[in-house]
């Protein structure tokens, strides 16, 4: 390198500078924030006084807080408005897909920059945030209403995404609907099913369910191969639903029931329930949840939002056709479904194993390693 040449020297200098500047690019262990004093102050009080205290403390926080969420805009916007109406606190919402929410939160906390006060996103990303010790524990009375399966160390389920097949009622006639996950392997569905390219958590849950009910690994492998042979692959649950409503595809191996319900509500000929109104396909409810950041700049407001999402916010979710994590009068989203437990343990710390297995299955190659 001849540094006397200006251009080259400038480029070399820049390269060196940038490389040294990137010295800590995404360290493996994210820095966890300190436990916030405000959270401790609220938690120290008896449960019935916590909300009042949080409201009082929130007043000093400027009447606003920041939420990072993967709720779609048509859900996040009314949720934020309802919260503001109930509490007077304005919600600044950053929306992204769940991976983006995770990436952004991790990056900001690694750089020790204030970003989110609270996060509301999917199961896997909430687990990752919790594993990275970014979330503060919540001990409010709102937890009492949540089922045990919806409670985690530093986050709590707010809504459930239910895994279930969906179909176009003009193309799948009554009597043709699947009655079990095994049915998807039936030759009558040859070329009629669509699989989503990233549904590894569904793949794990069905596999786990079959294993628990005594199927051998060989049988399960066979079933999956037949299902894949019946199917085409698409990307994105909402994209798939759009092709289902237009009659481009007859059936989806799995879509979230709320997406189907919302589509059907706009008049599209799609459903996830057979004509009888009762499905025998085991439905897996994946918990999506809320957490508050240890590093929050508006911790009392974040606490209030957490609390609200598990109480008043639950009714708001029902109004938007979502499945709340607590029992809410008027919630019909689970009617006709046969729920079975979501495999929290199998997917909590799987290090991407099921992503790789599902990817290999779709590409028709053998999985290498774990």
């Amino acid at each position, binding site marked *: 390198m*001849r540094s006397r*040449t*200006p*251009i*080259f020297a*400038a*480029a070399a200098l*820049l*390269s060196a500078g*940038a*490389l040294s*500047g*990137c010295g800590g*690019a*995404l*360290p*493996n262990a994210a820095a966890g924030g300190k436990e916030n004093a405000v959270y401790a102050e609220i938690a120290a009080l008896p449960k019935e006084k916590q909300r009042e205290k949080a409201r009082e403390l929130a007043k000093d926080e400027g009447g606003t807080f*920041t939420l990072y969420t993967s709720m*779609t*805009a*048509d859900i996040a*916007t009314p949720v934020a408005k309802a919260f503001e109406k109930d509490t007077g606190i304005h919600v600044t919402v*950053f*929306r*992204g897909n769940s*991976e983006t929410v995770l990436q*952004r939160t991790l*990056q*900001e906390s690694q*750089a020790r*920059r204030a970003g989110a006060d609270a996060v509301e996103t999917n199961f896997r*990303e909430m687990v990752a945030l919790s594993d990275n010790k970014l979330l503060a524990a919540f001990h409010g009375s709102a937890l009492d209403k949540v089922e045990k399966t919806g409670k985690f160390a530093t986050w709590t389920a707010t809504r459930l995404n239910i895994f279930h097949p969906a179909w176009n009622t003009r193309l799948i006639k009554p009597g043709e609907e699947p009655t079990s996950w095994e049915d998807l392997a039936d030759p009558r569905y040859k070329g009629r099913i669509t699989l989503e*390219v990233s549904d590894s958590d569904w793949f794990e849950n069905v596999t786990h369910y079959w294993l628990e009910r005594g199927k051998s690994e060989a049988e399960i492998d066979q079933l999956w191969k037949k299902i894949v042979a019946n199917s*085409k*692959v*698409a*990307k*994105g649950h*909402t*994209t798939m*639903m*759009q*092709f289902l*409503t*237009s*009659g*481009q595809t007859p059936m989806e191996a799995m879509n979230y029931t709320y997406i189907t319900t*919302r589509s059907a509500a*706009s*008049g*599209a000929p799609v459903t996830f329930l057979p004509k009888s109104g009762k499905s025998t396909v085991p439905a897996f409810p994946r918990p999506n949840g809320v957490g508050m950041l240890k590093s929050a700049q508006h911790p009392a407001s974040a606490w209030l939002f957490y609390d609200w999402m598990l109480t008043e916010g639950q009714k708001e979710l029902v109004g938007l056709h979502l499945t709340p994590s607590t029992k809410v009068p008027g919630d019909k989203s689970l009617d006709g479904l046969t729920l079975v437990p979501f495999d929290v343990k199998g997917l909590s710390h799987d290090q*991407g194993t099921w*992503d790789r297995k599902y990817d290999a299955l*779709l*590409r*028709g*190659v*053998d999985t*290498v*390693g774990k």
Partner: protein
Amino acid sequence: MALISASRKDPAAPSQDPPPPSRPGLLTRLRRKRLSAQTLLVGGAVIVVGYLAVVPLGYLIHDTFLDADGSGVSLDAFSRAYGGNSQSGDMLLNSLWFALGSAALALILGTTLAYIQVRTDTPFKSLFFAASLVPLIVPGILYSTSWIFLGDPQSGLLNALLFKPLTGTSPVNIYSVWGMIWVQGLHLSPVAFLLMVAAFRAMDPSLEESAAMSGASRLTVLRRITVPLVRPALISAALLMFVQSLESFEVPALLGLQNGIYVFTSRIYFVLRSYPTDYGAAGAYAIGLLLIAAAGVLLSSWLQRSSRNFQTVTGKAFRPRPVELGRARPVVGVAVIVYFLITVVLPVAVLVYASLLKYYAAPSAETLSSLTFDNYRQVFDMPLAFTALKNSLILGLGAATVVMLLTAVVSWVVLRTKARGRRLLDLLAFTPIVIPGLVLGLALAFVYLRMPLPIYGTLLILLVSYCTRYLPYGMRYSSAAMAQMAPELEESAAVSGASWFQTFRRVLLPLMSSGILAGWVYILVVSFRELSSTILLYSPGKEVLSVLIWEQFENGQFTTLAALGVCMVLLLVVLVALAYRLGARFGLQGQADSSN
């Protein structure tokens, strides 16, 4: 080349040429007049371009080559990316086939169209403007989806309404490599069109006329004169479109996955969405793409090595005169209409039709009777629509202007000086094209989160991101324009006592204006749809249109999205038409005819 050489100096004897004014002068002057306008401008532009390119590249290299524990250099990421069951060989072949096919199709379509537009007396010239821009404006998601509704083997409108009744068969299958090439090629053809229009404009037709007078047939003129003369632009366009197709994700995701056609970007998507995210493997794929792109850049500079052959903008004035098509005029006219129908009318008609529905369904008496403007009402009721439009405009205009100004200067350094490292600079400026948007987003977030300047969380970080992302395009547009310029113009200016800055501003920039305006328009339009880095870097209150589009898409509101797409097409067509009109008013040569 004999015909060309006959009309100008022998390129094989460069020693006869007077040395370009700036060649020995640059370094000397840089040293001597350390703070002259030239030093500041050239040095500043080089530093900014180098900086923009090096940040994401450095981040990528760091993540790819460093051990998991951060202690040493390792190539593990490459074995994770390319080894095991990754089917990287198949994917590379699929990727190359798809990219080459798309680039070839786009190049043929774009160049032909540009030639007809600039050099002939074809009818329907006004259609070219729309045909060249609309596919560029429509976001990839919408364009691909429109083609699915048109070309699905079972229910696609083309099969159901056209081929089935006529032939009894359904020959169109959009879910094939050919389908992918078709959609990507059509979507890319504006890149070639914009570059080639600029190149044809800057070409002195007297060379072709001389050849024709000497008895060469029309085909020979085209083959021996016209095509060789626009070679820099052709090569630039081919390179850009090839690499862009390698890097593109929307078409392979929507059309390729259906039948298991996986390409490299499918793998990048896979590793980036898994958790824990394997940035090393993503980097290894990006570096694979980078090597292919680097080979492309080197090949393109090798192909352009005898640069004087292409210098058509000389001190001699010329007035482009259209080729009279004669009897072929009606045929060309029909071809133009057919092309316009296929690339613009069909997909936009699907969008307009979808935008009037509650949910998408094939046309029937039932759907046609329930058409509604609700989706447009929703678009105008979106609380963020105005903010997003304003931010997109600021960013689009800002990025287009900054990139084209920077690259005009840097392309001068690369093509006109003998400065050492200029090839590296050219290569460096090309690297952002292969860096996955998300990695770019992460790199910028990483740097600016740690910088005390108020950039993170503002529109500025998006501007930096867009400038980085579109730098390679700006460079290609600028250097294609610069390569056509003979140094004698600068020499004359220098002899007449003009400073470097005056020469650059009064001679070079105006003469390059065709190419610069084309690049400006391209960047303005595509920055409206940039999402992959935006989605990580935007902040609440700083939303842009592409984020709104993404939100509608995530909401599953294809019909609302279609309405938004139609509005975007209208807005950008008006904006670009205005830009061309203004360009014409302020003396940019020969622009007026492109917008009428």
